[in-house]
């Protein structure tokens, strides 16, 4: 199998990928390190407030609201969207896709190898976040969370980035337009995050189940370890999105 596209995608994005991995891991580490000073604050919050924030005074509860509840998944979502928009949409808009697609490779191979590079990047980002958590686990008083529980949450983090990468890839493959990719992914991101955060308050639990964020953190992997059903839902969603995009891409005209 000719993997030239995959190799080149990774090599082209090596600098930005280095930035993403180091940046995300550093930010995650910094936030996680504040647990000892924040734990008292969390404990003093009124019960109702803690409910709303899905938090409690435990290390897992704190990380679920701060590091893994907000900042790191936000970065992962942006990584997935930005990288996914470059799967085909950016180059199609600039006219560069003609050259590659005039070579003897099926369109699906171009798409899937580029997406493969995106998956590799998402795994790298999450792996380094995991390493960063293990690095501060002792010093930041996070030993109540086992390395495996951290790993479970980081796997979900990678899958979250991959789902948004798949959405961006699929939208780009189907439309060929970057604006559709960015607007579509941003809209889905905001709506599904909101659904995840407020479904309980709205008394509409079913709403949360439409959100990738629910499968990412809803079952609290930091407390309960791997949730294979959630992992499957995230992986399956990504596969379906890329599959639909590939099918649409194969059927339509390449924009000139």
């Amino acid at each position, binding site marked *: 199998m000719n993997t030239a596209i995959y190799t080149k995608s990774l090599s082209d994005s090596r600098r930005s990928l280095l930035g993403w991995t180091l940046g995300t891991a550093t930010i995650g580490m910094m936030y996680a390190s504040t647990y000892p000073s924040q734990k008292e604050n969390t404990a003093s919050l009124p019960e109702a407030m803690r409910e709303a924030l899905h938090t409690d005074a435990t290390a897992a509860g704190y990380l679920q609201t701060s590091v893994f509840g907000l900042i790191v998944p936000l970065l992962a979502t942006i990584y997935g969207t930005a990288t996914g928009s470059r799967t085909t949409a950016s180059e199609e808009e*600039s006219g560069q896709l*003609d*050259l590659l697609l005039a070579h*003897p490779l099926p369109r699906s191979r171009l798409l899937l190898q580029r997406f493969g590079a995106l998956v590799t990047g998402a795994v790298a980002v999450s792996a380094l976040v995991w390493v960063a958590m293990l690095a501060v686990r002792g010093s930041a008083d996070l030993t109540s969370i086992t390395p495996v529980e951290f790993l479970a949450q980081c796997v979900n983090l990678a899958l979250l980035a991959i789902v948004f990468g798949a959405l961006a890839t699929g939208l780009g493959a189907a439309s060929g337009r970057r604006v559709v990719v960015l607007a579509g992914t941003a809209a889905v991101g905001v709506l599904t995050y909101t659904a995840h955060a407020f479904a309980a308050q709205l008394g509409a639990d079913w709403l949360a189940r439409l959100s990738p964020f629910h499968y990412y953190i809803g079952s609290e992997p930091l407390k309960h370890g791997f949730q294979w059903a959630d992992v499957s839902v995230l992986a399956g969603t990504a596969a379906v999105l890329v599959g639909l995009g590939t099918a649409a891409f194969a059927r339509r*005209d390449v924009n000139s």
Partner: protein
Amino acid sequence: MENAIELRELTKTYGTRRGLAGLSLEVCAGEVFGFLGPNGAGKSTTIRLLLDLIRPTGGTATVLGLDPRRDGVELRGRVGYLAGDFVCDGRQNVRTYLRFLAALRGGVPQERIDGLADRLGLDQSAKIKKLSKGNRQKVGLVQAFMHTPELLVLDEPTSGLDPLVQQTFLDLVSEAAAQGQTVFMSSHVMAEVEAVADRVGIIRDGRLVALDTVAGLRAGTVRDVRITFADPVPEAAFAQIEGAQQLRLDGHGTTLTGRLTGSPDPLVKALARYTVTGIRLTEPALDELFHSYYAGAEAAPRTTPAGTATTAGTAGTAA
């Protein structure tokens, strides 16, 4: 295999806009075919259909005996393509990028790439985005020729190239043809295909309006004539000459000027009866012929493609 390219009633519509309107065309294996037309006539649409970058609304295309849609991968492996507006990823240097493109084809000998780059005067260590338009076009030419494909599909290949490099390009085309490769090249300048093309097709509004050999097209073209005589000649002396309807004698009857259509032979035979002191027949530029197809098009915008093509063919036979 007889034909490298066979197009049958190929149509392509973009929304309400017409790209191609029933284009039929055959390009024989081993020939150099010039595909002429102004911008927007449908040249790039045709070429992108050949490579399965876009799909026809109707009709069929067969390239190297293959269906672009079904056998696209095999087809593109045997074709070298240069886009009309060649753009590529500019972040790396020329050598790395060409090696990447070669890898997509399963590899091309480095000497072949180096040889082509040297002939075109392309510095492979330069970053692509720092290259001038002409040098970037050279990258496009190298990647199209490097794997010695059976069929070269070149869309406006010489745009941006300086005259010296254009000559090198024409040499490359001639060499490719000598090796039995087929070349299908589009242009909006007749002069650039004139030198190498065996046959020329002219496309207008998505239809083929002329198809002939270069010699045949030239035979049907118009020459500017100026002939002077020692003594006045009768006014009606040349009125019956084929193709000479646009020639006029001046008041003295000693100077004949105007345009001659088709072969100059009947006029030359008629002139023999008089004493000619000066004669000038301009070599017909195919460019003019090309323009005449378009000038005529405005008067009669919907000439049937078959009819026009036959006219050109007849003129060719008459010569």
